[in-house]
């Protein structure tokens, strides 16, 4: 079976800092791969090469076996890659609907932005993802951290992604909302999406992921099936940078 995504031998430096040092990871349809590592290990930087936010110095990206060039976020979206960024990447002065459709606005026949239709769609998806969400007509700056996060999640899920990147999607969520995201991940997995999940919660990762890739100082320590290792093994990989 060809992987949905293969990132092969990716390297990227910021000035002299090797943020990503020849890392190879892959992802199959219907699979959740966890990316683990210390703060500053290079997790966000790696997935930003896939989402088009950064351009890698060297390496190759294959989507369904085909080599692709991803130079900007539009290229990534064109390959059905959706991303929930750690920073959420929301325009604080716009409302939930405008953020959800940012860059992909629904327009009316005359080519004008159709805010009412976008709001209706946003209400529909939010009813599914976060039924308690009510703040449709205020700028997202007026939202709580968790509400903002659910807007970012809705944006990634709405557009029928094939590849979903979630950079600490539950960092600001309460226990109830975190469980809902876990259910969402399980559902998307059943639908055949491939998901990269970055998280610091090893317990969550063991529960949700099929495989984990551990990074340390920009290098890949190793990739393991969660069924083959224990939480302590993974902790060892993160802290000591050694395979079990």
């Amino acid at each position, binding site marked *: 079976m060809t992987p949905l995504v293969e990132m092969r031998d990716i390297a990227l430096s910021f000035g002299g800092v090797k943020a990503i040092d020849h890392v190879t990871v892959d992802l199959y349809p219907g699979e959740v791969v966890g990316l683990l590592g210390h703060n500053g290990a290079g997790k966000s930087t790696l997935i930003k090469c896939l989402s088009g936010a950064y351009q890698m110095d060297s390496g190759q990206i294959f989507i369904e076996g085909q080599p692709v060039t991803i130079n900007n976020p539009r290229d990534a979206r064109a390959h059905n890659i959706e991303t929930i960024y750690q920073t959420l990447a929301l325009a604080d002065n*716009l409302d939930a609907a405008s953020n959800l459709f940012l860059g992909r606005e629904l327009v009316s026949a005359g080519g004008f932005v159709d805010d009412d239709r976008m709001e209706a769609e946003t209400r529909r998806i939010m009813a599914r993802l976060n039924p308690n969400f009510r703040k449709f007509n205020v700028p997202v700056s007026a939202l709580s951290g968790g509400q903002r996060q659910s807007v970012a999640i809705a944006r990634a899920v709405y557009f029928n992604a094939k590849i979903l990147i979630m950079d600490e999607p539950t960092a600001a969520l309460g226990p109830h909302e975190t469980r809902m995201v876990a259910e969402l991940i399980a559902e998307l997995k059943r639908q055949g999406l491939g998901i990269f999940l970055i998280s610091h919660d090893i317990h969550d990762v063991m529960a949700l992921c099929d495989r984990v890739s551990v990074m340390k100082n920009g290098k890949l320590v190793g990739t393991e099936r969660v069924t083959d290792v224990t939480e302590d093994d993974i902790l060892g990989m993160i802290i000591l940078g050694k395979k079990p």
Partner: protein
Amino acid sequence: MTDTTSGEIPRKSLTQTLQLDTRLLGMIGAFVVICLVFHVLTGQRFLTPRNIFTLTIQTVSVAIMATGMVFVIVTRHIDLSVGSLLAVCSAVMALVQVWVMPQLLGLGIGHPATAPLAILAGLVVGASIGAFNGWLVGYLTIPAFIVTLGGLLVWRNVAWYLTSGQTLGPLDPNFQLFGGINGTIGVTASWIVGALAVAAALWFMASARRKKAGHGFAVKPLWAEAVMMALVSGLILGFVAILNAYQVPAARLERVFAARGETMPEGYTEGYGLPISVLVLVAVAVAMTVVARRTRFGRYIFATGGNPEAAALSGINTRLLTVKIFALMGALCALSAVVASARAANHANDIGTLDELRVIAAAVIGGTALSGGVGTIYGAILGALIMQSLQSGMAMVGVESPFQNIVVGSVLVFAVLIDIIYRKRSGALK
């Protein structure tokens, strides 16, 4: 905020029910107070049709540019070169009128193609210089403050060089129609325009309501909608009525009749009606508001102002966006140059001097935040009107010009302070 799904129905104030922007109300309130105070201080000379007419045409040039400045400031940039750009555009248009068309092409004075070609040339020059500024800012990442500070010096002196420092005139008679008092559409046409504007506004409000209701969203109560419609219609028609009430002086009318070889009937009067320059401003205001609220371009401007990184991660080409915004600003400078030079009937070197400050002040008084992401077109126009009212009012009262500037400068700072306090109170600023 309204929410159809929540069970509780919070009590709402009148302004909330009418969905009026309280900040706008505050500005209108300030404007009304300014007008009333000057009306008293000038011995009832301020709120006359004649003075309102003059005030309106004096505001047009700055107001047109202020609408473009809103987009520039919303994206966290600034344009200090608008006054100089206006001068270059004015110089180019004057050259087309007094040299290219009559002399170079030998088409004589007053050829019907002169005004359209001059305006086209001005728009092309303005948009090109603006696009160049935008390229320096967006692609070469030089701060807009520096690019346009340089531009302020460069373009004013390019204008000087183009005309060798001479005053060029008189401008084409058709071109002069854009100047204000020399180009009004008369009473009947003004009423027709007013009626059409009311019809368009009512249709727009009704269809917006229908669309919202169609999606099952909460809409204003019917009475609130009716109040808003009455308010808008009243404002439009009242404005037309005032400009129509300003009578053309009898001596001038006599000359018009004499030119046609007729004699003026006894007791004949005629109002000026809407100046063409004001119609240009209205068209710009409507177009810019539609761009801001109903187009992707406008949405991207506000998104980029709110969070440039998020905009880029959403696939928005923020560099190209910057070029487009500055090009639009340049084109609007050209349009202002048409109005300003037509009003003066010639091109003089000092045209548009200090306009950059007036334009930025108008946008800022109108609620555009320098931190980006926030601003409205109507606010900027109201800001321009408030500044012009202050200036004219003080001149009428006999305040010396240095004091006028002291007051206007202080008002700018004070207005921003009020704005900050208002936003803190309303929770929009943290």
